[in-house]
């Protein structure tokens, strides 16, 4: 780092650069928050903030939080996201352990397959999966989204976790084996606790991806029984039939953004570590 000898001019320069980054990242978010507290009349005034007190309202929030058109999709998003994340992290941990630690034929095929799926155009799967899910009765159900989310979470999980697993002090595993533990016991009792931080990071990344997903959520659901929050925004009609849905959509957008901001604030280090772990060594 260049911390040692910096001139005041450099300090001002970096300070300005920081401010620019902060502004560019936050202005669109603040704009959404501002829209979400505007009254329907104020929405037709293009000033950035609602200036007069009469332009403020919590109505958009109370409106969306009292309609099942938003609450149910929110519950779906949380449930589908958590279940997909749990399954993906468990399966990816097992595979990543094997990739990082064990010698077995077919490892290259697994890595290649994961890479291929990471690059996969989701649209190429929409048509066949739509058809398959309809014939299996999975269309418009939670599993209908959980299964593809797990499949797309796996490559991310396998890469991130195998990068983490390679950093673990594996002598401990040997020590456990010397003490009479089977490879499976060594995995569960010794390695898993050490791997927990990597697994938390992976879980955050996979959950964010599920929370964000739109194309499958839009294509494989037809009612609020399984529609997730991002997809529900596209079907929003507002609190009542005659209001323009701009305010409610902005409020709903803010509600689904809040968890992300909380995640990012608390887990910034982990997310950065996770995003960069797989990519550096390429």
């Amino acid at each position, binding site marked *: 780092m260049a911390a040692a000898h910096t001139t005041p001019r450099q300090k001002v320069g970096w300070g300005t650069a920081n401010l620019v980054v902060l502004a560019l990242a936050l202005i669109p978010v603040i704009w959404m928050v501002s829209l979400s507290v505007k009254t329907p009349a104020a929405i037709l005034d293009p000033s950035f903030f609602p200036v007069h007190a009469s332009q403020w309202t919590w109505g958009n929030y109370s409106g969306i939080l009292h309609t099942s058109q938003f609450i149910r999709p929110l519950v779906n998003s949380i449930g589908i996201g958590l279940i997909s994340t749990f399954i993906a992290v468990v399966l990816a941990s097992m595979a990543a352990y*094997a990739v990082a630690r064990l010698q077995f034929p077919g490892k290259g095929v697994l890595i290649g397959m994961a890479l291929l799926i990471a690059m996969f155009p989701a649209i190429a799967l929409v048509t066949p999966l739509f058809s398959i899910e309809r014939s299996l009765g999975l269309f418009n159900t939670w599993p209908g989204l959980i299964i593809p989310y797990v499949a797309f979470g796996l490559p991310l999980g396998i890469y991130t976790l195998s990068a983490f697993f390679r950093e673990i002090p594996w002598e401990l595993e040997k020590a456990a084996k010397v003490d009479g533990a089977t490879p499976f016991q060594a995995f569960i009792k010794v390695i898993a606790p050490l791997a927990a931080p990597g697994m938390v990071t992976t879980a955050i990344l996979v959950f964010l991806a599920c929370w964000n997903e739109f194309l499958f959520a839009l294509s494989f659901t037809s009612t609020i029984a399984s529609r997730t929050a991002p997809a529900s925004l596209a079907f929003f009609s507002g609190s009542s039939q005659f209001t323009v849905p701009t305010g409610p959509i902005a409020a709903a957008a803010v509600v689904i953004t809040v968890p992300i901001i909380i995640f990012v604030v608390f887990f910034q280090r982990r997310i950065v570590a996770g995003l960069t772990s797989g990519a550096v060594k390429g």
Partner: protein
Amino acid sequence: MSVGQAVGTLAASDSTEADAGRRRKPRLSEGARAERKLGWLLCAPAVVVMIAVTAFPVGYAIYLSLERYNLELPTATKFIGFSNYAAVLSSPYWWHALVVTLVITAISVAVTLVLGMILATVMHRTLFGRGAIRTAALIPYGIVTVAAAYGWQYAWTPSTGYLSAAFNNSAPLTSEFKAIGVIILAEIWKTTPFMGLLLLAGLSLVPEDLQKAAKVDGATTWQRFIRITLPLMKPAILVALLFRTLDSFRIFDNIFILTSGNNGTGSVSILGWDNLFNALNLGLGSAISILVFICVVIIAFAFIKGFGAAAPGSDIGKR
């Protein structure tokens, strides 16, 4: 001894013999065999899910793409060979969508690379508030694309949006070129942090001593960037570019919210989706799906062969 037991014993002795035979060939130790078995066992669930959700449906999509299959006319379903592909490839809509997709991809990836490099440098060099900067930069990455897209849409809507007001109450989303510009802007805002973080990881691999030595030798900041930083970061840059390009090529969310693909702003993903859910044509939709898949394979292949990008994780097996 009952017959069943006898058969059981026979089978058991049979399998021991088979095992012995297998053991003789590769001459694996007991431990290596157990390791191999455990390896397969641990990977099996992941492999099964990935194949079930991707490989199998792609195979099915290839089959569907060779059929005339319209959900509105299910009785007219019939094998028609490559006619769907001929229909797509001779349609101006496909080529227009492909050009739009390529333009969005090329411009947004190029701009994101430059901005991501700047962002990475700021995050790497900044003296105070490093945590705050990284946290702020992560918000566009983490935010739901659809939510952000609505923010942009309203910002550019006349009489509602501050950006529209700032540009003479213009309505860019109603004209093709300007709408594509807004889509590119939304893409850049959303993906620059990811690019910045990947490049930051590459940047932290450049040894500080090397920079100092070059500085002592009289190299300017620009020279150090071109001659030292960039070459050492090449692997990180190529991996980031590959992932961003493929990600951008499948753009869907931003366009769907911002313009729904109206005014000639639809990408190939939007075209495929329209054929399935608006035209209910599974055959044509599948043909488009497969063509998009082929495009992605070509792009990935070009990157890996042409630019020598090592596939990320290709070192994993070496341990």
